[in-house]
């Protein structure tokens, strides 16, 4: 057979290299497949995305709305608003969010902060929508 012929023409070292490479492929395939999808934060204004970032790295972001600049902080996988030009600071009072689907809304400055990711089947809260 062609494959057998192919294999016989390789040196011993060639065979070891090829087998190692295939083993590496299989291991990587398994590792990539098992990795949970990373959570990230997305900020939108009037439906347009202003900012996205994974939650793994700490950082702050300055987001501009009609009232001015809202400062958002990502720290230890959690997102919160640290300063805002809105009158009643409801967005700051909403505290930390870190789970997929959680939202901080700053209605006066028209900003919507959402956590995305890890919405895989079985991890949900048992309902599709929440009436409140």
């Amino acid at each position, binding site marked *: 057979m062609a494959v057998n012929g*192919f294999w016989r023409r390789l040196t011993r070292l060639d065979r070891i290299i090829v087998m190692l490479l295939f083993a590496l*492929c299989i291991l*990587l395939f398994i590792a990539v497949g098992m990795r949970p999808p990373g959570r990230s934060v997305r900020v939108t204004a009037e439906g347009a995305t202003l900012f996205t970032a994974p939650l793994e790295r700490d950082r702050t972001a300055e987001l501009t709305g009609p009232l001015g600049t809202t400062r958002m902080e990502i720290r230890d996988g959690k997102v919160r608003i640290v300063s805002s030009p809105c009158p*009643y600071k409801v967005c700051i009072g909403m505290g930390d969010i870190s789970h997929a689907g959680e*939202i901080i*809304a700053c209605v006066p400055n028209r900003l919507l902060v959402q956590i995305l990711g890890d919405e895989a089947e079985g991890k949900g809260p048992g309902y599709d*929508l*929440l009436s*409140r």
Partner: protein
Amino acid sequence: MTRATATLLLLAALLLAITLLPPREPEGPLIRTRLLMGTVVEIRIEDTESARYDAAVTAAFAEMAAIERRMSPHLPQSEISRIAAATGTVGLSADTAEVLQLAHDVAEASNGAFDATLGQLIRLWGFAEGEPRLPTEEEIAAALAGDGASRLMIADGRVAKVVAPLAIDLGGIAKGYAIDRAVSVLAAAGVRHASVNAGGDMRLLGDRSGRPWRVGIRHPRKSGDILATLQLAGKAVVTSGDYERVFELDGVRYHHILDPRTGYPARGCQAVTVVADRAALADAVATAVFVLGPGKGLALLESMPDLEGVIVAADGNVSVTPGLRGVLEWP
């Protein structure tokens, strides 16, 4: 290196590259969110190839924004602001006339428990502005003297106030109406499975692609917990609760659902969830039932066709209309 080795190495490199390529996202629902009517509005399309309905979702949001521009009491150019400022009759758009007529019907059916003419009283309490305060008894009496659904006359697309200071607030109905209109826009574009959720008030279009939607009802006293779950298709679900906008003064909690008869927060219920065909009706009736309290509230739900509901009384007792018993799941 032989030619065979080179070929195999190339093959291995190719495999490696394929492995490391980002996986193709499986096509899921189309979910878009906007800030409208002072709340977070989420539209979710569950049809196959949901991405092709992106323009329909944009149009549905635009429809809701147009309704907000007409019916918000906070925008000086809205029809509601024009009515507040007017002394004579005011011409209405078909939308606003329809909402005012529905508000009038629910006010009549509930014996005034739902009242869209509480604009002055609502402004007095300051819940909408985010700076609530306890008004004096004199202030409340003065505001109530100028309010009342019977003091508003609607005919042939025009509205007239019997008393000049009367102000309309459609807070208990306009959001539901906007949800209904968004659903109509989606349905006209061919969408068959969708939800429009405005801050917890929602309407479902069809089922969730082969199974009913599961709608959790928030527990009124345990934030983060579910009171019950409804399995529904093609219905509107609206909840009015005493936990949404609250302040406390001298050990007394004051919430935003005001009783038009007293001018103070209604005390009969913790929460009311209404299931109806239209979100505008569910929205207004949820407020009316909350104000009426569990006994009269349940009677109102049972007296109107195609209305169902769950009432959590002030003492925590839960009553459910018979039509919901098959679709309600307790935790």
